[in-house]
């Protein structure tokens, strides 16, 4: 799966627009400024997934991409466990950092993930003129690699490499670091690239 520079730039631009919308919603929820990274695109061989996702404990809210392509891949809201505690503390008015995550934390994380991923997909779908809807959310708080690996195993199209497309969203005030990670199926990726290329041609 080789992407040309033009294709990478186009996907990056798409990510910028989606992540900017997600960042705005996060900023509103936390009442603070959010910094956003330039979206990073990695074509990752499965055997090397460990270079991108490790043993660190993280909360991940996963959504399957649905809509115009029924099983389009996955989008995740990823946040390290430490950041997750700081985020729910900020939202729920708590201060203790060294504590187990409760059901209330889990609901808050799912809600944040839901709002951010919906904003991300709304913005990208509007640009592409192509419907991408999130499935109901699924949360896991465990080893990042284990969660990611499980999603890859249930992808529809058999593959030896995946495209990980991630944008970092950070809040310095509360020391919160999170990512939105998109992992499209190959056919979804091809469709997205096609739509982006057509846009460039007609504009």
């Amino acid at each position, binding site marked *: 799966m080789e992407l040309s520079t033009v294709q990478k730039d186009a996907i990056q631009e798409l990510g910028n627009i989606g992540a900017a919308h997600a960042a705005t919603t996060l900023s509103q929820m936390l009442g603070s400024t959010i910094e956003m990274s330039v979206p990073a695109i990695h074509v990752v*061989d*499965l*055997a*090397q*997934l*460990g270079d991108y*996702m*490790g*043993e660190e*404990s993280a909360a991940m809210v*996963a959504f*399957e991409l649905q809509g115009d392509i029924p099983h389009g891949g996955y989008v995740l809201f990823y946040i390290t466990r430490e950041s997750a505690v700081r985020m729910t503390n900020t939202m729920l008015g708590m201060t203790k950092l060294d504590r187990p995550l409760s059901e209330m934390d889990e609901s808050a994380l799912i809600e944040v993930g839901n709002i951010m991923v919906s904003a991300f997909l709304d913005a990208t779908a509007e640009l592409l003129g192509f419907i991408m809807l999130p*499935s*109901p*959310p*699924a*949360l*896991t708080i*465990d*080893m*990042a*690699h*284990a*969660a*990611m*690996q*499980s*999603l*890859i*195993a*249930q992808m529809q199209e*058999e593959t*030896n490499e995946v495209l990980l497309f991630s944008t970092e969203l950070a809040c310095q005030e509360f020391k919160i670091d999170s990512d939105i990670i998109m992992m499209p199926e190959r056919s979804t990726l091809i469709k997205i690239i096609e739509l982006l290329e057509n846009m460039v041609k007609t504009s």
Partner: protein
Amino acid sequence: MTDTQPRNSQPSMIGIGEYRVGSFPMTTIGLGSCIGLTLYDPNLRLGAMVHIMLPESGGRADRPGKYADTAVPLLIKELIVLGCKNRSIIAKIVGGACMFEYFGTSLNIGERNAGKVRILLKEHHIQLGAEDVGGKVGRSVTFLPADGGRVLVRRADGTSNSLL
């Protein structure tokens, strides 16, 4: 992919679909629905480890370590070439979890992976020594063939145990 022993004492890292055969320490991180399978021959103090992702290869042969149905016979063959006997090999299985309940209900790949590996071991007359599978928990595994084939399992909460 039979490796010579790495010079440093760091365990050899086994990614998804990869395998190693030897007496050096081996490790694989973050098993979710995947399976970490170890085979160990106490007579020769030799072992093999593989990181399996799916139960069936459906005829694909490019990455035999990725699928249970191609990985199990391959590992056994590699060990037999090195002089191991089927009846002395001891297997241990780790992983096969269901990390996301919502997606898991329709399609529990972890359970299918573990089930397939058990069936294949039985077909090849390999004794299943121990297993730590299922649940909703990620696991990392370190395999030490030189230390009696010890298998160490770590979890994200910091707990760990040894599979005897």
